[in-house]
C-alpha cells in the first residue's frame, strides 16, 4: 500500500531558509546581507515551486519506490540517517571532518565521503528485480576545482560501487569539459575495463547560446530515471527551478542482474577513495597533484538524496508541466461496426482529415458532431463551414497542419523537417487566437511557451534570442502547441552584453524580425535576401517576376558594378531590374544583421570602435559589438563601396518601393491612381511590413499557400479565379483570420472534390 507523506512543510521550509540565511550571514560580511536576503527569497520560491514534484527538499511527497532517503537534517555528528526503514536503514558514515553535517545539508569542503559501511543490499536486491533506477538529489555544486575536475572527473555526487577499478554499479557525477556538466553512468557486470553507459547533460560554456545546465552555488534538483526497457532521462532544474530534460531520451541497456552484491553507497566521492596502498596515478595530474585512481572527490552541498528502484514517470517528475497526450482523443468513444457510414459522415471525415492532418475513427464523436451540421445540408456552404469549424478546434489542426504550413515559410528550402521555431510559433498562435494575419508582418508581438505548464528551457537570452532551444524542446517533448503557447506583447532584442530591450521602440515587426526569418535570410550578405524572400514568401512573387528594368536605379548600392565585364548595357538589362527594386526596399532592414547567433539591432548593440571597415561587416565574431558604418547602420550596407562610389550611401532606414507601375502595380495592388507613378516611401521594417500586409498580393498569397496545405497540390493558373474568390472572402468576410481561411478552403469542391 502506498503511503503518501504529507507534512506541514511550511515551517520546515522556513527553518531551512533561516538556516541558509544564518549560514551565509556568519560567513559573509554585513554588506552581503542583500545577497543573503535574495538567496532566502529564491530558496523559499524554490521550495514553493517544487511542491507538486515527486519529493520536495524535505523528503515530503510521494515516496512510492523510494529505497533509501537522506534529508541530511542532522545538526551534527558523523552519521547521515536513512529515513527508509524497510529493508534496514542504510545510514551513511562521514569519513572525515571534511564532510560536515549541519544547517540542513551535507557539505564537502575537501576530499571526503559519506558512505555505507555495509553493502547496500536493499538497493542491490530491489533494483535487480525491477531493473529500474531513479536518483533524485537537491544539491549546490561548487566551482573551485573546475580544472581539476577536467583531469580526474567526473566527481561522484553519489555512487553505488566497489571502486572505480571494479567498474560496477552506477554514479551521478559532475564533470568539466569546456564547461560543467552532470552525467550518470551505469555498468551491468563486474568487468574490469568495461565501458560505462553514460547519459550526459550538456556542457556549459561562456557562450550564452549554450544551455546553462550546471549553476554553481545555486540550489538545483537533479532527477535521473531509467525504466526496465532501458529508457533513461536526465532532468536538471533551471534558474526558474523548472526541471528541464537535459538529455535526449536514451536507451541504456544495463541489466542490474550483473551487479556485485558487495556494492556500497557513497556520497561525495568513490567508495575506496581513502583505501590504503593503492598506486598513485603516474604521471601526477598537473592541476590536481598526486592521487589514486579511486579519488573522485566532489565539492558542494547535498540537501536531499533519494534512491528509487522504480522509474519515475514524466508526470511524477514534472507535475502540471508534463506534456498531455493531445494526439489521443479526449473524448471516450467506441467502435460501432453496425453504424452506417452516411455521405455526410464521409464528407466530415474528408474535411477532418484535410484540416487535422490525421485519420480518425469513423465512429468518433467529433465526426458525429460534424455530420450533424451537414445532415440535410451537405451542399450548403454555411453548414460545411460549421463542420470545418469543429475540426479546427482539434489540437492536431495546430500541431500538424498549421505547424507544417508555418515551417515551410520559415526556411529557404521550404522543409517541414526543420525544428519548431519562433516564426512557426507566431503563426500557430495567431491562427489559434484569430489574430489579423496582417499583424504577422507589422505588429510587435511574439509567442512562447507558458512556463507554468511546460518544462522547457525558457531563458530569454540563452534559449529564445540566442538559440532555438525553447521552441525545439517544445516540439521534442510533444507539447500541445494549441494550448501551451501564450502571446507576448512585444519582441525582445539582445544587446550582446547580458541585457535585453523591448522591440516596441526598435521597429520589430512580426515574422520579419523573428529569429528564424532573420537566421534564414539576414545572415551575412547585404540584407537583399530579406527583401527577396519577404516578397517570395508573403507575396508569392520571386524576384525574377517583379524585376523591372524601367524602374529608377537611384537606390542601387555602391557595391553593384555599373559596368560589369566592361559593359554598361549589361547592367541596364541584367542587373538594374532586380537591384533597382531590391535595393530600393532593403533600407527597411538597414539597422539589422544576424550574427553570433542572434538578431542585432544597430541602436541596441554597441558599435565597433573605432569606425570599422564595412567590408569586414560579415566577419564579426564578437557578441557585444556590431559593425556599423555609419553609426546606426549595419556595415554590410556599405561594404565594397569602392565599386561604384558615386552611388547612394545608406545612412538611414528609409526605403522606396518602385513596384507600383505596370504589371507589378496590378499584381501587388500598389498601382497609384492615374496619372501618378509616384513610388511608395517609408522607413524601417514595420512600415515595410505594413506595406506588404496591405497589398492585394498578401491575402492572395496566403490563400495559395493554404490551398497547397489543404488541397495537397500547388495552385495552377487555372485556379486563379478560385484563389481570388477565396482570398476576397478571407479579406472581407473572415477579417484576415487564418483559421477561417483554412476552414473555408477545406470545404470547397475545388479542393476536396464534389
Amino acid at each position, binding site marked *: 500500500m502506498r503511503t503518501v507523506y504529507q507534512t506541514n512543510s511550511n515551517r520546515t521550509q522556513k527553518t531551512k531558509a533561516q538556516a541558509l540565511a544564518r549560514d551565509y550571514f556568519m560567513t559573509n560580511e554585513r554588506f552581503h546581507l542583500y545577497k543573503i536576503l535574495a538567496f532566502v527569497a529564491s530558496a523559499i520560491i524554490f521550495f514553493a515551486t517544487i511542491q507538486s514534484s515527486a519529493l520536495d527538499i524535505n523528503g515530503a511527497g510521494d515516496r512510492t519506490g523510494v529505497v533509501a532517503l537522506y534529508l541530511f537534517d542532522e545538526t551534527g555528528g558523523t552519521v547521515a540517517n536513512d529515513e527508509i526503514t524497510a529493508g534496514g536503514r542504510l545510514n551513511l558514515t562521514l569519513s572525515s571532518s571534511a564532510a560536515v553535517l549541519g544547517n540542513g545539508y551535507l557539505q564537502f569542503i575537501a576530499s571526503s565521503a559519506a558512505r555505507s559501511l555495509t553493502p547496500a543490499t536493499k538497493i542491490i536486491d530491489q533494483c535487480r528485480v525491477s531493473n529500474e533506477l531513479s536518483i533524485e538529489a537537491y544539491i549546490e555544486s561548487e566551482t573551485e576545482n573546475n580544472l581539476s575536475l577536467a583531469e580526474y572527473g567526473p566527481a561522484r555526487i553519489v555512487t553505488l560501487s566497489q571502486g572505480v577499478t571494479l567498474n560496477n554499479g552506477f554514479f551521478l557525477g559532475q564533470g568539466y569539459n569546456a564547461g560543467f556538466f552532470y552525467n550518470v553512468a551505469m555498468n551491468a557486470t563486474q568487468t574490469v575495463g568495461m565501458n560505462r553507459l553514460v547519459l550526459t547533460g550538456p556542457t556549459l560554456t561562456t557562450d550564452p547560446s549554450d544551455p546553462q545546465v550546471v549553476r554553481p552555488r545555486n540550489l538545483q534538483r537533479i532527477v535521473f530515471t531509467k525504466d526496465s526497457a532501458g529508457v533513461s532521462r536526465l532532468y536538471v532544474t533551471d534558474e526558474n527551478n523548472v526541471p528541464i530534460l537535459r538529455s535526449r531520451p536514451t536507451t541504456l541497456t544495463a541489466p542490474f542482474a550483473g551487479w556485485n552484491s558487495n556494492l556500497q553507497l557513497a556520497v561525495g566521492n568513490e567508495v575506496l577513495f581513502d583505501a590504503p596502498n593503492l598506486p598513485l596515478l603516474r604521471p601526477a595530474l598537473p592541476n590536481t597533484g598526486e592521487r589514486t585512481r579511486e579519488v573522485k572527490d566532489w565539492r558542494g552541498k547535498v540537501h536531499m538524496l533519494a534512491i528509487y528502484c522504480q522509474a519515475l514517470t514524466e508526470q511524477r517528475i514534472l507535475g502540471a508541466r508534463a506534456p498531455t497526450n493531445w494526439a*489521443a482523443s479526449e473524448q471516450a468513444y467506441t467502435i460501432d461496426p453496425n453504424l452506417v457510414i452516411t455521405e455526410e459522415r464521409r464528407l466530415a471525415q474528408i474535411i477532418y482529415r484535410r484540416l487535422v492532418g490525421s485519420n480518425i475513427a469513423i465512429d468518433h464523436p467529433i465526426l458525429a458532431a460534424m455530420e450533424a451540421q451537414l445532415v440535410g445540408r451537405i451542399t450548403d456552404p454555411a453548414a460545411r463551414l460549421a463542420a470545418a469549424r469543429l475540426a479546427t478546434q482539434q489540437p492536431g489542426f495546430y500541431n500538424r497542419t498549421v505547424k507544417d504550413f508555418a515551417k515551410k515559410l520559415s526556411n529557404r528550402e521550404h522543409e517541414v523537417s526543420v525544428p519548431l521555431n519562433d516564426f512557426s510559433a507566431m503563426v500557430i498562435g495567431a491562427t489559434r487566437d484569430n489574430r489579423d494575419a496582417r499583424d504577422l508582418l507589422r505588429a510587435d508581438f511574439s509567442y512562447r511557451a507558458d512556463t507554468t505548464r511546460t518544462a522547457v528551457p525558457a531563458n530569454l537570452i540563452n534559449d529564445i534570442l540566442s538559440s532555438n532551444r525553447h521552441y525545439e524542446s517544445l516540439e521534442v517533448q510533444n507539447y500541445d502547441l494549441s494550448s501551451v503557447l501564450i502571446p507576448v506583447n512585444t519582441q525582445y532584442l539582445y544587446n550582446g552584453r547580458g541585457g535585453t530591450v523591448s522591440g516596441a521602440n526598435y521597429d520589430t515587426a512580426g515574422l520579419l524580425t523573428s529569429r528564424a526569418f532573420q537566421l534564414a535570410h539576414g545572415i551575412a550578405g547585404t540584407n537583399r535576401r530579406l527583401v527577396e524572400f519577404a516578397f517570395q514568401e508573403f507575396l508569392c512573387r520571386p524576384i525574377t517576376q517583379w524585376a523591372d528594368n524601367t524602374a529608377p536605379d537611384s537606390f542601387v548600392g555602391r557595391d553593384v558594378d555599373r559596368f560589369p565585364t566592361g559593359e554598361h548595357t549589361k547592367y541596364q538589362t541584367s542587373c538594374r531590374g532586380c537591384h533597382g527594386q531590391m535595393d530600393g526596399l532593403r533600407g527597411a532592414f538597414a539597422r539589422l544583421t544576424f550574427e553570433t547567433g542572434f538578431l542585432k539591432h544597430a541602436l541596441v548593440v554597441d558599435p565597433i570602435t573605432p569606425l570599422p571597415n564595412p567590408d569586414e561587416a560579415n566577419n564579426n565574431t564578437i557578441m557585444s559589438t556590431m559593425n556599423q558604418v555609419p553609426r546606426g547602420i549595419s556595415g554590410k550596407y556599405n561594404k565594397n563601396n569602392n565599386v561604384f562610389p558615386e552611388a547612394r550611401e545608406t545612412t538611414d532606414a528609409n526605403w522606396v518601393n518602385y513596384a507600383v507601375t505596370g504589371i507589378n502595380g496590378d499584381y501587388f495592388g500598389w498601382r497609384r491612381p492615374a496619372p501618378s507613378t509616384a513610388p511608395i516611401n517609408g522607413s524601417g521594417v514595420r512600415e515595410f511590413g505594413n506595406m506588404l500586409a496591405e497589398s492585394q498580393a498578401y491575402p492572395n498569397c496566403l490563400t495559395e499557400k493554404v490551398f497547397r496545405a489543404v488541397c495537397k497540390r500547388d495552385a495552377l493558373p487555372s485556379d486563379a479565379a478560385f484563389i481570388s474568390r477565396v482570398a476576397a472572402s478571407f479579406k472581407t468576410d473572415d477579417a484576415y483570420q487564418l483559421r477561417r481561411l483554412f476552414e473555408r478552403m477545406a470545404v470547397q469542391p475545388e479542393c476536396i472534390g*464534389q
Partner: protein
Amino acid sequence: MKTKYVIKALQTMLPIAAIVAVMGNACSALNSSEKSGGSLSGSFCTAPPSTEFAVLNNAATASTVYGSQVLENMASCTNLGHLGLSRRTMDENAARSPSFSQYGYVGDVTSAMMMGVTALAVEVCNDLANKERDIASTNRLIFNDFNFATDVSNSDIDNALTRMARSCWGRNPTDEERAIVREEVLALGTNDARYKAIAVCTSVLASLDGIKQ
C-alpha cells in the same frame, strides 16, 4: 528470439498482404469516393512523378501523410497518442523517417517508404497490443474480443480488422481484404493472440489506405 522471428515474418509478409489487400481495392475506393484527379484516375497504384500530374477540376488530389505525420497518424487513429508510444517506436520512427515522403506527394510512395511504414506500424501495433492486453476487454477499442491468454478465432480477427479499418481507414474492410488478412494471420503459424493482434493492426496501418490523406 521468438518475438524477433515473428516480427521479422510480419515485416516480410505484411507488405505483400497490405499491397494485395489494398491495391486491389483502395484504388477503386479512391476513384469512386474521391475522384482522384487526372492521370491518377485508376492508377493511384502507379503514380506519376510527384509534381507532374494532370489536374481535374473539382476533384480532390490524392496525397499521403508525410514526415512526422506518418507516426502521428498511426498514434492518432489507434488512439495511443504520443504518450502511448514506446521508446522503441520512437527510435524506429527516427530511423525510418528519412525514407518517408516530405511533402505527401503520391509519387513519393516508394518501396523504401512502404518498408519503413511497415516497420513503424509493427512497433505501433506492438504498443497497441500491449496496451489493450493490460486492460479489461470492455474498455478496449480494437481487440475487445481477444483473449490474450489463449488463441483467437477467425471471427475475432474479423472483428478486430473491422475495428482497425473503421479507425484508420474510415471504412469497413471488403470481403476480399478480410480473406487476405485472415489468411496471412493464420500463415504466421502461431497460437499467440498478441502476435495475431499485431498482424491485424499492421495490415491496416501499413496499407496505402492507412497513409492516405
